[in-house]
């Protein structure tokens, strides 16, 4: 059963008010902020449209109201205990006031990750292999991920795919789809350009803050391939 959201003010009393204010200020400094939050009519349309609200103790309205009135205590609690329940479907964009609680949450998640909050680390436990896949190969999921131990709830069908994977991939007419470890064939130069983007935009620093082990593995892979391509780049 999903846990009830505990919004008592003393839940994170060990965290200073200055720290809570600082994190909220980081949210407000995001260039998107002024276009995704305009106030709240308290009409509840966002909650009615929200899939996560039906299964979790989760409310996009609560989040919109907390950020609109700048209740940094509550915002800190929500940043830790609520934002990861969001489905990011943006059904809440139906807001008649023009708010996008979903995008407010995107920004709050980004701040949580950037600051290495423990709850963000917990939320992303088990997700590291996906980050590794997308950052190192340029595709989020791949055929070889269809293994029974990864998708036991998808039934025997996954066994069939895993058993026949190599032949079934070769039995795809588009030549670009004969791959196993990536969704399609990706050029080496393309991957190098992707690595350079991660490097130039500070994404590797984000990873370091959230998962040191994953950062280390990614650095190994990227530095080697970048060096082979003639780039001398060190990720700190």
């Amino acid at each position: 059963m999903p846990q009830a959201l505990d919004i008592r003010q003393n839940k994170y009393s060990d965290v200073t008010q200055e720290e809570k204010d600082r994190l909220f200020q980081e949210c407000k400094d995001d260039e998107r902020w002024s276009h995704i939050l305009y106030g709240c009519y308290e009409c509840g349309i966002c909650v009615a449209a929200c899939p996560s609200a039906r299964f979790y103790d989760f409310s996009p309205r609560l989040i919109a109201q907390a950020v609109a009135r700048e209740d940094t205590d509550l915002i800190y609690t929500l940043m830790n205990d609520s934002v990861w329940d969001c489905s990011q479907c943006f059904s809440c964009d139906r807001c008649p006031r023009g708010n996008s609680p979903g995008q407010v949450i995107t920004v709050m998640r980004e701040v949580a990750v950037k600051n290495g909050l423990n709850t963000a680390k917990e939320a992303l436990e088990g997700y590291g292999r996906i980050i590794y896949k997308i950052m190192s190969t340029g595709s989020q999921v791949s055929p070889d991920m269809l293994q029974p131990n990864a998708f036991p709830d998808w039934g025997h069908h996954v066994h069939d795919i895993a058993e026949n994977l190599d032949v079934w991939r070769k039995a795809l007419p588009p030549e670009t789809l004969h791959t196993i470890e990536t969704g399609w064939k990706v050029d080496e130069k393309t991957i190098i350009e992707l690595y350079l983007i991660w490097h130039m935009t500070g994404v590797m620093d984000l990873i370091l803050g959230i998962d040191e082990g994953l950062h280390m593995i990614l650095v190994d892979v990227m530095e080697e391939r970048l060096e082979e391509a003639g780039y001398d780049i060190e990720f700190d």
Partner: protein
Amino acid sequence: MIHLPVLKASDRLFKIDPEEAPTHDLRDELFQLEKEGELEVIRVPEPYMEVKTKYGRIKKIPVEKTWHHKSCGQCGHIPGYSTSIFWLNRAFGLDYYDPTDQTSCTAWNYYASATSNPEAQAAVAIRNFAAAHEVGYFPLIHCGTSFGHYKEVRHALVHQPELRRKVRDIMKRLGKKLVVPEEVVHYSEWVLAMRDRIAERQVIDMSHITATVHPACHYHKLIEEDAVYDSEIYGAQRSAIVTATLQALGINVADYSTWFDCCGFGFRHILVSRDFSRSFSVQRKIEVMREEANPDITVTHDTGCVTTLDQSQVVGKAHKKKVGLPVMADSQVAALAMGAHPYKVLQLHWHNTDNKPFLRKLGIDVDKTWAEFQAECDLIKAGKKEFMTWEDAEK
């Protein structure tokens, strides 16, 4: 007492009027920025087709010279989805490009984990657009999330000079230009715009089929004014996408009350919290469709939606829920209507929910077509051929 007229939802008329649109036409600003030397606009190649968007703006859909921005989930887990898109292009003899100089938009990861930032997301998008432009083709986006995300990126680049500067700088270091397409086009818009031509070549009668449609959230909820609407479809109160295509093929599209709900994908949920995805997909979508419309099939137009709606039914079946509804993409249904092979082209063996009753209802010999596919696999296994070719698939 004041008596106000009460209109039923079905009687409401949504008047499409670009003059009254609450949003402006982004293309005007794009062309202005181009004049100022801030970016370069990739024009939709001629000939193009025209469709109407939510507030009546005409959107240009290229017929050919399309650069196919593939989807990780489609290509990785349901590859018949993209194969069907390519098959349709080949069937019409159109010039298309299936690139290897393409990465994922990386938005699935961004919406799931937030381990990225707006500069990185925009740079990934523009790198892909530039790759298309360099070979002289126009991007056609396969994934609903990539489509929605790229619309957001385009919007941000127009309105945020600092983001533009940063991305331009990154592109310069990659030896690329900051190029932005005149239109962000989803493949299902191409299928919709081609629907009459597809129907002209239809060889499988589908007039006895009832379908439900799930419109993908990131297609019509992100930058909603850029989704396709039609006053003849739902009175233009919701997007015409997929529905218009199916109707052109003679399929009866049945309505259901939870059409606006998401599929349950959830981005991080489908990977690490699938209890949510399964429950939502079965209880709010599949069961409602079965109870209210009892369709033969449900059709959608996005990676995550096909996967979630299809795969979630396994556990629903174990719990004796009202499931057992085949799920396909509009590209697969369109290709099937034109006579594409259910396994060599649609690759339905990658789907989970039993689709054989649906195929049989269409008069397709399931055993024979499966044996034909198996024969190709046997040749590959025996080392007699390396791959199945397009020619093999089109036999």
